[in-house]
């Protein structure tokens, strides 16, 4: 569940938490695009380092590190697959450049995880819903989205209880061949899905009995307004994109291995 931990929002106050979620989202998308544009290790490293001040400002280092640790397994997987595929396709030989390429593919994945993690760690589901509403997403969808985000930790906890209950009936999850192991999860998944559906029906009834959707036109107590911090973030985002485009078009980026 460690990957989920890295996405779980905790109420803290910091300059980053107070930023407008719309701008933050645009920033994350900009980082996302930049990471996709480059396959060399130097710009990807720069993008990686660029996130660190945000993490420190938001004081979410611990959770952020946990989400990186959660992504470590997939990252290793990406690295190994890259190495293996180049090894087998290039006549069973490896150069320093091959390894560097595999490393930058991995780093690209890490940058993506890292930036999304920062976004979700510092944006409350309420804020997110508010942002969706103010970008004219129909309220029903905005509500469904925020509810889904909010229920992730609840479901994770429930999955743990279900696993305990089935283990208590002699189920051994880590036993048997790969196929058997996947099948082992059926007794966990079915109760989880059934209870999620049941929970959603109950939630719908509870909402209806509290007059959900009674007024067609909703007003909000809080409104998102752009502050100075948001303007700074817009500037940072624009700069990142501009520098990235410039570098992509006009600067030849050498691989690190050429320095040695």
């Amino acid at each position: 569940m460690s990957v989920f931990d890295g996405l779980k929002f905790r109420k803290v106050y910091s300059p980053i938490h107070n930023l407008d979620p719309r701008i933050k989202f645009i920033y994350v998308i900009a980082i996302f695009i930049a990471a996709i544009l480059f396959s060399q290790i130097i710009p990807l490293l720069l993008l990686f380092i660029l996130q660190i001040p945000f993490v420190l400002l938001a004081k979410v280092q611990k959770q952020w590190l946990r989400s990186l640790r959660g992504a470590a397994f997939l990252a290793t997987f990406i690295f190994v697959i890259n190495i293996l595929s180049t090894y087998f396709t290039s006549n069973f030989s490896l150069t320093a450049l091959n390894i560097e390429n595999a490393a930058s593919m991995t780093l690209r994945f890490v940058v993506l995880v890292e930036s999304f993690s920062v976004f979700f760690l510092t944006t409350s589901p309420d804020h997110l819903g508010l942002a969706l509403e103010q970008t004219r997403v129909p309220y029903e969808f905005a509500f469904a989205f925020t509810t889904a985000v909010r229920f992730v930790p609840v479901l994770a906890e429930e999955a743990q209880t279900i696993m305990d209950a089935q283990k208590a009936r002699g189920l051994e999850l880590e036993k048997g061949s790969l196929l058997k192991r996947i099948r082992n999860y059926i007794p966990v998944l079915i109760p989880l899905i059934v209870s999620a559906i049941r929970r959603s029906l109950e939630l719908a009834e509870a909402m209806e009995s509290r007059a959900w959707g009674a007024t067609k036109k909703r007003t909000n107590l809080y409104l998102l307004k752009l502050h100075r911090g948001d303007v700074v973030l817009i500037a940072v985002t624009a700069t990142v994109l501009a520098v990235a485009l410039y570098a992509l078009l006009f600067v030849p980026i050498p691989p690190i291995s050429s320095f040695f």
Partner: protein
Amino acid sequence: MIVVEDLHFSYPNNVEALKGISLTIKDGEFIAIMGQNGAGKTTFIKHFNGLLKPASGTVRVDGEETVKTSVAALARNVGFVFQNPDNQLFSETVEEEIGFALKNFGYDKETIEKRITWALNLLSLEQYRKTSPFLLSGGERKRVALASVLAWDPQTLILDEPTIGQDHDQKEKLRQFIMQLQTQKKTVVIVTHDVEFVAECNPRVLLMREGKIVADGIAKNILTNPQLLSESSIVLPQIAQVFTKLSSLGLPKDVIDIYEAKEVLLRKAKESHVK
């Protein structure tokens, strides 16, 4: 026999849930663990079948340390029925649901068939044999969950909140059923907030508060101690309340059982009649 020595446990978020518990549960004992929400009751019982392992201290089930044994191996001797049946039901029919654990433990087909029938009869679920467990009512689902554990006839049975959602008849059946297990020298541990149920069963009561056992004794002594109970947000059983309020008339305070109450009151009535 379950022996717990100086058990400590903390959750990953550094909440210390158990702060040094020592306890011996002999075969054939019937124990009710009570205490307010968050006292550590469920955390404690999850140590009996190894779902949680002690941070320090030891839990031994029949001499074996739970740290060194898998949950599946421990589960054979320690059956655990969870509070919410929906956390475990997944099969297409009640029959398959009950057979799940038996298959996991590697029983042969014939035995499985026999055990399923036995468990269904025991909890009056025969008519639902081929029904989907998801179509049953809450109370029935709870009984299916219980049947699915009873099926392999474990030496120790742990029930987390067994009386929730059960009507009076079912509670009475559960009580009689626990008594029946007692005659077979089976150990039964229940976690419950149901004071009246405990008063009727009169088991050994463990009162937990903030990760510690604050009282351990027969129900009759613990459930008639107003101070002890109020500190754990538990109210006295109704009969004990009446007897405590009437203690000025010379009635004993330690009565929790309806039959005993009747006897005491009848005696008292006869005495005053004679006068």
